[in-house]
């Protein structure tokens, strides 16, 4: 099929029914009933990675672009929407390795529910039931916290409806910070359909030394290189946890306390820093595990915090915000995207 000049098609598709019809016809020929809509509202409901490949190849041939889950493009003129809701299986749970293999369209909340039934969790803070519990505590301390808690509860509910592909492409907000436990990881393997339609597979491994680590180019990559169609996610046991919050007069002291808590060997499930109105900074630390381990960790947390002027908050009700703004893809990854995707089907 002949390739049209990209710029003219993007600008002219809405008004050029022939081009839009040609694209729709090509998609329907390849993907049948998985293609919905007409003209400027074409939507592909992929069932397999092969469907995604077909979409990308046909889009490139017709100078169209694709609004992918977690990507930078939104549906509109000359942009085909990709849905992964039919590519949403939980393929397997490797209980021995505690790795769940899911398709990109699986909902985060569904994956978490599946794991909970096996006594496991992804440990995503934004999904955490305790976040909702905290709303009660926050509400008890005043309207300011209550409003924030309500927003968090709404956010948690929304997060549960996010699909894995979008969540990962936007940076896996709420996942455990790597610095809190360098031995742990969330994503140990990926399957990605690249913009040229090829399927890239990063097999699951605990660590590797086989060249550049491509995973961060996709996790947080805003789908500019490809669309995540499968992921191997590492779960952990659901075990008791304890939250503590210390308040510091200066943010630098709180940051130093967090660095030293990690440096002293505490492996928190999560840490969060939040500077309130003024300069007061709250450091929240959650530790988990058997009682003896938690108590030992909390003793170290207390010692480090107090050495830096921290004062414990009772009850632990400080805001527990998580970074929602993830750094955009780097210039190098964008250059790579241009090289791999010269037609620009996935780029804004």
């Amino acid at each position: 099929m002949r390739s049209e000049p990209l710029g003219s098609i993007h600008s002219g598709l809405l008004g050029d029914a022939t081009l839009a019809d040609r694209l729709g016809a090509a998609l329907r020929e390849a993907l049948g009933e998985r293609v919905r809509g007409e003209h400027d509202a074409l939507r592909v409901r992929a069932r397999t990675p092969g469907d995604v490949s077909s979409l990308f190849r046909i889009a490139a041939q017709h100078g169209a672009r694709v609004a992918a889950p977690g990507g930078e493009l939104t549906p509109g003129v000359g942009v085909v929407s990709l849905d992964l809701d039919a590519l949403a299986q939980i393929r397997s749970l490797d209980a021995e390795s505690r790795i769940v293999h899911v398709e990109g369209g699986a909902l985060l909340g569904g994956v978490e529910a599946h794991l909970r039934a096996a006594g496991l969790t992804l440990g995503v803070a934004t999904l955490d039931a305790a976040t909702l519990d905290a709303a009660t505590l926050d509400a008890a301390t005043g309207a300011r916290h209550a409003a924030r808690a309500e927003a968090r509860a709404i956010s948690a509910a929304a997060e549960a409806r996010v699909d894995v592909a979008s969540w990962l492409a936007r940076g896996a907000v709420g996942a455990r910070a790597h610095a809190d436990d360098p031995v742990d990881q969330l994503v140990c393997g990926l399957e990605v359909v690249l913009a040229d339609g090829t399927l890239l597979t990063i097999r699951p491994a605990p660590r590797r030394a086989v060249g550049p680590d491509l995973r961060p180019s996709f996790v947080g990559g805003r789908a500019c290189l490809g669309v995540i169609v499968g992921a191997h996610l590492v779960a952990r046991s659901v075990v008791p946890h304890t939250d503590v919050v210390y308040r510091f007069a200066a943010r630098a002291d709180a940051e130093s306390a967090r660095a030293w808590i990690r440096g002293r060997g505490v492996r928190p499930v999560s840490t969060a820093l939040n500077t309130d109105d003024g300069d007061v900074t709250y450091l929240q630390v959650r530790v988990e595990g058997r009682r003896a381990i938690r108590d030992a960790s909390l003793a170290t947390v207390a010692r480090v915090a107090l050495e830096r002027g921290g004062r414990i908050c009772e009850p632990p009700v400080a805001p527990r915000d998580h970074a929602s703004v993830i750094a955009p893809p780097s210039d190098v990854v964008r250059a790579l995207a241009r090289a791999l995707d010269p037609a620009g089907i996935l780029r804004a």
Partner: protein
Amino acid sequence: MIARSAKRYRTARTIEPEAHASAVIDLPAMDSVLPEALRSGGAAHEALRRDLAALVGDGRASTDTADRVAYAKDLWPRHVIGVRAGIAAPAPPAVIVWPENVAEVAAVMRYAHEREVPIVPYGAGSGVCGGVLPTRGAIVLDTKRMRAVRAIDEAQLVVDAEAGIIGQHLEDRLGERGFTLGHFPSSIYCSTLGGWLAGRSAGQCSGRYGKIEDMVQSLTCVDGSGEVRALDVEASGRDLIPLIVGSEGTLAVITDARLRISPAPEVRRFASYTFDTTEAGLAAIRAMLQAGLRPAVSRLYDPFDSLVARRNKRLAAPSAVIDGPAPNKPLQPGLGARVLASALRSPGVLNALIDGLPGPALGGAMLVLVWEDDVAIADAEVREAERLCLEAGGRSEGEEPARRWLARRHSVSYRQSPMYAMGAFVDTMEVASTWSRLLPMYHAVHRALSPYVFVMAHFSHAYPDGASIYFTFAGAARDDDAALEKYDAAWRAALVAVVDAGGTLSHHHGVGRSKAPAMRREQGVAIDMVRALKAVLDPRGILNPGALIGDGRDAL
């Protein structure tokens, strides 16, 4: 086949970069007695040296033959077999250059880029995968003159250091202030920070501190066109550092880095257990890691490797092992060594003999555990680990085996020369997989290697989702040609077995040239993505050609 024309040229010169200004050799006179492969390029090389000296300063660029031989390889055992056969340098570089700062690195890189001269970054040359093998006419860029510790931020627990610093020197500087990087590869005395980053190195205490890629916060590098790139998680995107770390000098030269550090631990705690089977020992490690325990060291030796470890206990005091052979003790093989070399020529028989014995007959699989933590955390984890190990069928051996391991932890890398002296070869292969695939991979690789070499293994880096296996193997043949043939056959079989069993080819040694042929088998189209990345960062393909992604001609 070994090229006989280059045989029997040897050099014992030790490289001291500072000495180059005074190390003048009469090149034409020396060339007349050298094999063709080692001769300098005469006027062309000298012109290259003059140009580079103008960029970095007099005395910091060399075409000295001894330098070119010394920088022609790393510690890839295949090179060592070659050296034993008289191949000192199969393709020596044209010139070696010692820049002292990032501006000089950039200047050299721009020069090489403009003229399309291959350039090979070089740390301490202790890699074991053929990551350094300059093509003839290449520039070798040694980073060791960039070795400053620029700053230690005690409040935020980070260190800024230049890439050429030797690992132990960095650790010493941190130790003076009461800190540790927590990175202790057995090559720590002869490897650099830049080399660690380029190869995704792991230290022996990775269970507590993580691998080197887990420590890096930011870095500066110079790409293949000479552009200086300052990479920081916050400022430049979190995707870029992981692309440079592990790229083995094929995308950029790392010149400095900021790394997370830790306060020196309050205590070390030790424990050791024996299990009837390797399987039971692995189950104990997995239970610990998945329960959130983080021993700095958790090493499980398979029954034969455990037997060797126990035997070493009687051979020498720990200090003697650490110090290695006495400096003036010749590495001459005795009768026992000759018998061993002879036995290694029939490894299938040896392996079958060992495999046929039940684990307990060899004393079982031994697990050593070391913690580096605050007292309260360490003690709590020791108690919990004991509960889990006993549950898995372990028997406590007390602290001594773990203490002995710690005392000797760097010695193994310095114990291989006697094996080569006796006509054998030794190598190691460190691979990784998820827990569910680990034992099948262990058995598959063992089976694949057995016809060629005698093989044993330990499991030395554990995570909640999997672990690394470290195979050690030794072989011998009637002559060096046959040894190379056997060595290559063993590697080919093992690499295929790893990938087909679902593992990854390397956990922390990197790929270099030894594993490059199997990269596509494991990585598939990811290799094409790395090639595309190289086209972005090194458009003329001058950086360390042949390493990591290979040329596809010998693909497995």
